[in-house]
């Protein structure tokens, strides 16, 4: 059975999603008690929209300083965090710059 995740995309990244502000990412669910890590969802997102991952996560696997991710309403920076199916993710380009 597949696991679906709705991912909300901030405007700076919508050039990758052809303008869509939300996309559905589908992963095979490993087992009912083994939710895939956030890293796997981001990888699937990058497969669907090549290049999007590197703009938000650096080559050392860290979220870039002005990018935040919310799983539901909880901010998550650890990409190994397991994400239950049907959870909504929100990528936020934090207010910064000038």
């Amino acid at each position, binding site marked *: 059975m597949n696991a679906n995740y709705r991912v909300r995309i901030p405007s700076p990244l919508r050039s990758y999603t052809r303008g869509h502000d939300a996309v559905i990412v589908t992963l095979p669910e490993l087992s009912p008690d083994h939710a895939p890590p956030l890293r796997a969802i981001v990888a699937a997102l990058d497969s669907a929209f090549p290049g999007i991952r590197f703009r938000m996560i650096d*080559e050392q696997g860290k979220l*870039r300083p002005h990018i935040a991710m919310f799983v539901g309403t909880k901010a998550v920076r650890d990409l190994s965090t397991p994400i239950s199916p049907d959870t909504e993710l929100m990528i936020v380009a934090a207010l910064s710059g000038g």
Partner: protein
Amino acid sequence: MPAAARPAARRVTLLIATRKGLWTLASDAARSRWTIGGPRFLGHNVHHAMVDPRDGKSWLAAARTGHLGPTVFRSNDRGRTWTEAQKPPAFKSGGGRSVDHTFWLTPCHANEPNAWYAGTSPQGLFRSTDGGASWTGVAGFNEHPQRKAWCGGDQDGTPDGPKMHSILVDPRDPKHLYIGMSSGGVFESVDGGADWKPLNRGVRADFLPQPTPEFGHDPHCVRLAGGNPDRLWQQNHCGLYRLDRPSTEWADIGGGMPKNVGAIGLPIVAHPRDPDAAWIFPMDSTDVWPRISPGGRPACYRTLDGGKSWRRQDKGFPSSQGWWTVKRQSMTVDARDPVGVYLGTTSGEVWGSRDEGRTWRCLARNLPQIHAVEASTA
């Protein structure tokens, strides 16, 4: 110059990389009328954009945004359409370092079509052999056991972050390379980047406890002299220098600058054909280093004798209250005769001279902060 040897009166295109996007200025054949184009990548922090002189139609732009990581865009149709690199410059996973931005782009040797070098912040060297679509780290530098000693930590860099710049390719030998690093100094490779050696003898580093170290210097900009690839010009944090190979000892050529102006700036550009001629744009480096035109009176200085003497060139510039900063990549020349000289300011103005700096006029204003200006007659 004899008419037969004179470069054709070709139109000039300036690529203007800014903190908020990429603009162009295109001239007529007389370089008297300029048409502005853009923006491309509106809102992106474009650190450098270059035309490939080998085909004249391929452009590369290094960009990031305030939020997003660094990437490179490439165009094969003179900037009409752009494609993002599939694999932008990035350090090896697990090595602990991350590219903040790609700072400098240099086409490789004329005999290596589609090959490019990129220098990053923090200091890293990358190479592409497919026109900028994918980039691989040059392990001979990025993994060199001395790299950390050469570059220092991130806190040792310039205010905008430590960076690799001034990637120079010997036109006679694609494996003969120079790089400049702020900080780190100038380094040379004779084997295509497999190994590197410091090349800083004679250059001061008076901000360090030992003012003449082997490395750790702060070259702001290094250029090969036109018509003589055995000569290098260097605008350094500690003055002006010239190196004539095979010597490895830089000569201080700042002594001819007026004392009230000083010999410190960010850019230096070489005449495309005359190895004795170069331009600089000095800045105020006193006290807390304002990095703006000394006294609010912007001026270029030109040498025609290899740096023995420098002559002020400011006709057309504001005579007072002109507080300009011109970054190391924001001054350039075209290949025409007489040479066109161009500069961009951090206050968003582009100025040009079509008579080798004798007279200047403003070509564009009200742009964002300018990071880089490059000229092409291709």
